[in-house]
């Protein structure tokens, strides 16, 4: 913040070149050189309006989801955050009466274009839900590989490798490697959720959508998922909907605040949680609501 003042009027104000300020300036610079601005955003949402039948629930939202960053969507219940992310992989239209207008571009390609196969969209943009939902009749192994097999892969060696890699990425391998053929539902809630993440990762998605992935988990299991999110963003772009503001603050790089179907504020998480631009955001994050 002081840097902005210094930048805006060079020469007039001067930050003391102390050891306190020096590393901060360096890290700011480092942040800028590795900033996602240099890389095109993975998802571009333009003028998105979302409907349930005749009623419009999300109004004209435009935002950029940066590549290999975690973007959190926060807001009170009913603000349209889950509906919004369900439009990012065309899941919303599965709901009766659900439709969306506007554009969602994945690497420049409009997901709502005429010749786009929604199944392909959902392969490239995976989703993890609030309640862990492993396929109840399948083993851990088959759960992980289910989506991958649907894509036509059958070679057993490849499948084994894929299972191990996905479970490792989901930080579950060590816990289940000796019982891969046990039912997925034998696992604890936190493990089941990581199994679902492994299943989503097995098809090599570019984006992973997480709709309140920790709301059914205890604090330890939550911490594991949060650590996992941190590791996964090396390879996958993540969008997470959460009711837990502290979780958004902990795991995300960018945060979008939704209220009554509108995007109120979108920006870097540290800025949004320490010094937001909009009064509505400030009221929400400080708990001055209602």
């Amino acid at each position, binding site marked *: 913040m002081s840097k902005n003042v210094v930048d805006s009027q060079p020469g007039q104000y001067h930050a003391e070149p102390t050891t306190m300020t020096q590393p901060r300036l360096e890290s700011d610079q480092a942040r800028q050189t590795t900033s996602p601005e240099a890389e095109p955003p993975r998802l571009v949402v333009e003028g998105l309006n979302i409907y349930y039948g005749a009623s419009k629930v999300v109004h004209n939202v435009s935002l950029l989801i940066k590549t290999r960053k975690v973007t959190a969507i926060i807001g009170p219940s009913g603000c349209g955050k889950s509906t919004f992310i369900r439009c990012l992989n065309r899941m919303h239209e599965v709901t009766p009466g659900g439709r969306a207008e506007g554009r969602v571009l994945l690497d420049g390609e409009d997901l709502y274009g005429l010749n786009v196969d929604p199944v392909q969209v959902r392969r490239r943009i995976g989703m993890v839900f609030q309640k862990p939902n492993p396929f109840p009749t399948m083993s851990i192994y088959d759960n992980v590989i289910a989506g991958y097999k649907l894509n036509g892969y059958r070679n057993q060696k490849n499948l084994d490798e894929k299972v191990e890699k996905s479970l490792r990425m989901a930080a579950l391998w060590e816990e289940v490697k000796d019982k891969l053929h046990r039912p997925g539902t034998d696992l604890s809630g936190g493990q089941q959720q990581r199994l679902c993440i492994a299943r989503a990762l097995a098809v090599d998605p570019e984006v992973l959508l997480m709709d309140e992935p920790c709301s059914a988990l205890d604090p330890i299991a939550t911490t594991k998922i949060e650590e996992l999110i941190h590791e996964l963003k090396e390879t996958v772009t993540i969008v997470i909907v959460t009711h837990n503001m502290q979780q958004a603050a902990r795991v995300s790089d960018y945060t979008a605040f939704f209220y009554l179907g509108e995007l109120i504020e979108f920006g870097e998480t540290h800025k949004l949680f320490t010094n937001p631009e909009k009064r509505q955001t400030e009221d929400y994050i400080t708990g*001055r609501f209602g």
Partner: protein
Amino acid sequence: MPTSMEHTDKRYEEELKKLREEILYMGGLVEDQIQKAVKTLVDRDSELAQVIIERDHEVNRLDVDIDDICIKLLALHQPAGRDLRFITTGLKITTDLERIGDMAVNICERAIELNQEPQLKPYIDIPRMARISQRMIRESLDAFVREDTDLALKVCKDDDEVDQLNAQIFRETLTFMLENAQTISRATKIASVSKYLERIADHATNIAEMVIFMVKGKSIRHMKELPPSV
């Protein structure tokens, strides 16, 4: 969108209110300590000086208590936005207020020593410095309560006046010492008192700077020149 100032969590609201009141109480106490400390010097009242020195315990206790409140708020409520800035500012303000309290004790100690010898000179600039420093503390805390950044900026600007008075007293006491070596002991003590008051004004400036950060989220610390407005 409801935009009331109250938190939905009433207990949290109460604790924030208590924090604000405790900081203000500590500020009032510290201001009184300075005023009385300078009075012990001007009135040559060593007995009062002793009372003021004793009363510093209360300032120290408040420092610890307020830190406890802040840490509890941070741990239990995970504050964000302006609450976070308010609480972290509170933590820092008490450190400055506690140091101001120590300076008041130092003034009393010099006063007791000076009171044992004949008065070197009438005290004119020192009470003036004390008045400005006290006003700076009061205004910095007013700015804190009212979230008034204009007033906070004024406090930062007023610091120059205290610095000038300190330089003037230093030159004056130096002249005494050059003219008569017998005055060295007393003159250095007077110069010390002046330096304490100058430090007190610096601490008030720190508080004012933190108020600007708290309200605007913008740091004006360590700038060569103050911005005309924030």
